[in-house]
């Protein structure tokens, strides 16, 4: 790249005398300098780039090149003026709203029809976007009267569309989410499906690596079962699914106890899941419990001390060693008992935790009913009438 930078401009400057020669040459020199052209073109909207593909074969190759696609994406992500608002109509059109902030605020709404297979919309009805757009791609679900369901992944800017094949027989009551794994440069579609013991989940990889030249979307693999999840998912419509940092997040709750909600984190590179924190009422204060699991600390409890200023304080750090209970066991905070906390381990053992001297006192060990799998909650008696 550097060689070209220093050698090519000199060609134009060889004979700077004739005005007309100079006029055409400097723009030609720019257009033959790939570094500058990538720099200029990567600032253009997709619509202009699609149009410019027919300028010449060289431009077509440049605009379709994966390196250019990536450069353009990185720049577009950083430009607040390129940010748009997107929704999918029930009729299967994608609406894209641009809000320009330049001289005068200007709002335009484009309507985009994905490249559907022939007759597609006659069959499929009840169309919804699933989750949120992820790195420029969106996931849309289509239902038809016979309760069958289809998932489609689309780039609204280029209208490239791919129909995702259904996995096994499980098609109803699934929950999908689209994520991107930057280390492998692949999109991964995550699907949860109901099984008796919670949810199973599988992944479908949409690879961009195999598609050189044209960056159209081609499914490279099929669904792969990754694991089962002993949890329920709160938000079956996927409205709160959130893709951040190569990880997909959902709100879940354990099968045994729907009173405490966790945030499930699915790492798309490692294809492993973890639950990160749960929200609870701790003696009348809003509290977030974060499992740390770094070998010495079990849980951190953050309490919202000041609503007005949104100030969270780390109130407790539970790092006791309990003989017979490894750190990775399921630890729940049941409630606050004076200055102590009541903890439950593995839904079987209740104990008091005293933060002042970091000690544990067993209350019920290995409860006889095999597990305290019912909802356990602190309670205070009083005389208030229920009517």
């Amino acid at each position, binding site marked *: 790249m550097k060689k070209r*930078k*220093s050698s090519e*401009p*000199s060609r*134009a*400057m060889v004979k*700077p005398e004739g005005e007309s020669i*100079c*006029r*055409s040459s*400097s*723009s*030609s*020199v*720019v*257009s033959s*300098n790939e*570094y*500058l052209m990538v*720099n*200029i*073109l990567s*600032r*253009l*909207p997709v*619509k*202009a780039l*699609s*149009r*410019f*593909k*027919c*300028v*010449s*074969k*060289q*431009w077509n190759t440049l605009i379709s090149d994966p390196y250019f696609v990536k450069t353009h994406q990185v720049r577009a992500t950083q430009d607040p003026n390129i940010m748009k608002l997107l929704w999918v109509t029930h009729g299967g059109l994608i609406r894209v709203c641009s809000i320009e902030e330049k001289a005068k605020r*200007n*709002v*335009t*709404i*484009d*309507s*985009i029809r994905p490249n559907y297979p022939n007759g597609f919309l006659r069959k499929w009805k009840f169309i919804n976007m699933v989750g949120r757009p992820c790195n420029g791609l969106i996931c849309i679900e289509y239902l038809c009267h016979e309760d069958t369901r289809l998932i489609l992944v689309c780039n609204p800017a280029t209208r490239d569309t791919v129909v995702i094949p259904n996995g096994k027989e499980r098609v109803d009551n699934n929950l999908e989410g689209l994520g991107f794994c930057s280390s492998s440069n692949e999109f991964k579609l995550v699907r949860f499906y109901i099984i008796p013991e919670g949810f199973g989940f599988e992944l479908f990889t949409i690879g961009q690596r195999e598609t050189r030249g044209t960056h159209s979307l081609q499914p490279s693999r099929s669904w792969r079962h990754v694991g089962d999840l002993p949890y329920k998912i709160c938000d079956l419509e996927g409205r709160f699914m959130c893709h951040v940092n190569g990880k997909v997040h959902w709100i879940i709750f354990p099968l045994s106890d729907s009173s405490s909600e966790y945030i499930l984190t699915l790492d798309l590179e490692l294809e492993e899941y973890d639950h990160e924190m749960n929200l609870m009422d701790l003696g009348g204060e809003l509290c977030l419990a974060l499992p740390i699991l770094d070998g010495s600390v079990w849980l951190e409890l953050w309490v919202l001390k000041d609503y007005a200023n949104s100030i969270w304080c780390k109130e407790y750090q539970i790092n006791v060693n309990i003989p017979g209970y490894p750190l990775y066991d399921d630890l729940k905070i049941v409630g606050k008992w004076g200055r102590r906390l009541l903890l439950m381990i593995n839904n079987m053992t209740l104990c008091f935790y005293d933060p002042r001297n970091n000690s544990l006192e067993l209350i019920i060990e290995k409860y006889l009913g095999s597990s305290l799998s019912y909802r356990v909650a602190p309670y205070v008696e009083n005389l208030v009438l229920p009517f």
Partner: protein
Amino acid sequence: MSSTKIFLKSSDDKTFEIDETAARASETLKNIIDGGCLDGVIPLPNVSSNILPKVIEYCKKHGGDNGSSKKIANGGVDKDKEILPDYDEEEDKREKVRVDELKKWEEEYMDFDQQVLYDLMLAANYLHIKGLLDLTVEKAASMIRGRTPDQIRENFNINSDFTPEEEEEMILIEDEWDDEWAFD
């Protein structure tokens, strides 16, 4: 502040003077100065005498970047982060004035025809002046944004190398983009 003078020679053998601090806005010149290879005049065989004063004007405005007036250099972005913990309204106002002033200067500075734009872009690229390169590239992008492929070919002196069949196919794809509608 140092006021050592540097002399630059354009491709058509004209010599221009610039302060060392201003010259440091260019990575290329900075390396030459720091490398100690300063032997009187620095020849710039890729920059002509009608473009070089324009480049020097930009460097003069931004030359102190690495030293005293860092605030102007980054359009105030870095500065914003710095003052966040201890928000100072007065400082914020002054910052806004500086940014507005710089924008106005850039607007006037960039008022030239397309011919100069591409020459200036090549000079900025050759001399590694990132701010000037960004400015010229951004302007070029906004100029070609709404053009047709024919206008682009004319602009960049390109001959279409598609066969008539291929071209027809490309135009078909292109037409599809026009069946969208927009409203305010």
